[in-house]
């Protein structure tokens, strides 16, 4: 018997998956006020938000999107491999983590180049940048935690398929958040007048 409270490995696995899904529900609501604030402020100060999106580094954001999607792909493979007890599990996990770290490096470079512009912003445009830093920053924190957990799992407990599966869920969630942030900050009305 693995632990006292569960009758079987299966029950334990189901509990872990349900736990992670509920945690992700909490996460969605944790990001919620930022998304709500974004749309509320965008409606109130539309022009400032359009102006703000023109200051974003479009190509860095796009490359980062590709990097993150690739990491999701390697993570999906890792989960598959872990379930089938196949080969290259550690390699796939480390690849996902490496791509995540690459994303963070690009993001860090982007932040550094944006600081001077942000310092000049005022009024509603300031709100745009606040939301930009808060949302992408919170996303980056999640990604950092994810990368640490993935590396740790790769070296310590990769053979427990359930751990890889639960971690995979979390990883995909973090990627999915970016898939909302990317259009909200980089794309929306970028090419309108």
């Amino acid at each position, binding site marked *: 018997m693995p632990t006292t*409270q569960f009758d079987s490995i299966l029950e334990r696995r189901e509990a872990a998956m*349900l736990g992670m899904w509920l*945690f992700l529900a909490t996460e969605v609501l*944790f990001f919620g006020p930022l998304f709500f604030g974004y749309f509320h*402020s965008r409606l109130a100060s539309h022009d400032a938000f359009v102006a703000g999106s023109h200051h974003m580094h479009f190509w860095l954001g796009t490359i980062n999107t590709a990097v993150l999607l690739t990491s999701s792909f390697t993570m999906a493979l890792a989960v598959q491999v872990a379930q089938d007890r196949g080969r290259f599990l550690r390699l796939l996990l480390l690849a996902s983590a490496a791509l995540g770290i690459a994303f963070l490096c690009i993001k860090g470079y982007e932040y550094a180049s944006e600081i001077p512009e942000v310092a000049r912003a005022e009024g509603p445009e300031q709100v745009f940048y606040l939301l930009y830093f*808060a949302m992408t920053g919170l996303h980056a924190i999640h990604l950092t935690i994810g990368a640490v957990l993935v590396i740790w799992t790769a070296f310590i407990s990769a053979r427990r398929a359930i751990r890889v599966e639960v971690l995979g869920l979390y990883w995909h969630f973090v990627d999915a958040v970016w898939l909302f942030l990317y259009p909200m900050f980089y794309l929306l009305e970028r090419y309108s007048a």
Partner: protein
Amino acid sequence: MSYLAEGFSLRSWLTTNDHKRIAVLYMVAITAFFFVGGAAATLIRLELATPAGDLVQPETYNKLFTIHGVVMVWFFLIPSIPSVLGNFLVPLMVGARDMAFPRLNLASWYIYVLGGLFTVATLIAGGVDTGWTFYTPYSTMFSNGNVLLAVAGVFIVGFSSILTGLNIIVTVHRLRAPGLTWFRLPLFVWANYATSLILILATPVLAMTLCLVALERVFHVGIFDPALGGDPLLFQHLFWFYSHPAVYIMVLPAMGVASEIIPCFARRPVFGYRFMAYAILAIASIGFLVWGHHMFVSGQSLYAGLVFSMLSFLVAIPSAIKVFNWTATLYKGSITFAAPMLYALGFVGLFTIGGMTGLFLAATAVDVHLTDTYFVIAHFHYIMVGGSVMCYLGGIHFWWPKISGRMYPEMWGRAAALLIFFGFNLTFFPQYLLGWLGMPRRYHAYPPELQLLNVFSSAGAVVLALGYLLPLGYLGWSLLYGKKAPPNPWQATGLEWQTASPPPKHNFEHEPVVHQGPYAYDPVR
């Protein structure tokens, strides 16, 4: 061997993974905070015994009601029933050996304590004067209090709520005993399940909102202050999106407790079990859609106000259904009046008054006059104190034999229940009248013609304070000198009564198998 005998060292308590021991840890911690919040309330009522603000400085008074609100809401009411009784009873009631994630359970208690330390630090550093609602721009730009410390405490304790909620949900989903289908669950489990859903979905919104308040206060960039391009109403929307459902976090578990106690002491099945379960879910879900009724005079649009008003009336219906069903449960019963039953019946009465006066506040035009007055104070104290605290105490008495293995002294229990009921009404009923007469809340001084009612209220507070001290005394006494409790002193149904009092570490000698629904009581004589 009972769970209490598993180890007597402090270390054995502070490193335990046993849900029952963690529940006891929670009980100790929230009791401490209850008396901190109660002390603040006592000082508030003392100040208001006279119309002039002559006992404490206005700043001090503002800090008193802030700390009263912060402590009572986040450090007592919200964790009270879910984290103490829920933690102790949900695994027992579903026939499980522990919560699904025992270590997470212990972690949530430590997070609670950490949040509590921040709140204590706020007090030591000189307090905070924003009100428990932290309205912007006062909290971000104008207050000189320790807003950051207070906000940090509330932020941290939120994660304790989230983890407890997550644990309860997974436990109810995955660890039910064989044969225990959803519609055989006791209503207490239903109530804690629904509460947990609110905990995990509403609490993170508050956490992030408070982060934004902190950002705005520290860096002067923000989305709430109009001078910075923000909107203060956005804060109110986000805050009440959490804080209205939070009311249901406090009262749903209380309804669960009443639904256990009343059938037991009426010796008959609860009336309309399925409707009761559906009503719990309806309250939890509609409760997410009514937050705007806190903002009828805030400048939100007229139409938003009307939608929120209608939804607020809707959420009252499942509550009404529950009151009718509890009343009907008394019909053809065989009723005895032990202390838990007195608390439960008191709860139904007070909750009815609190709920009915809620309708006045849902009716937009009447709310314009009554909001931000003592009418609102009276209303939510009838729900939170008359509702949640009555049932928390009722539950503590009902399950005391199970938790401690001892019987409490019955006469003392009844006396305390009656004293609290009387003191409560004397304290808070005059506040309805004060509200109607237009006494605004959070007032350190008030017009002299309102003194008589305020004196009644303050006198009631003294009675209430005595009432709350009594159980602390005799329950403590019973730990040492109380009669040893049999496994099932109330002849109650429910899996928690089918094991020893107090239960062994893993709850049951053999995994129980369930063959019938809850409340299979037979009326006697």
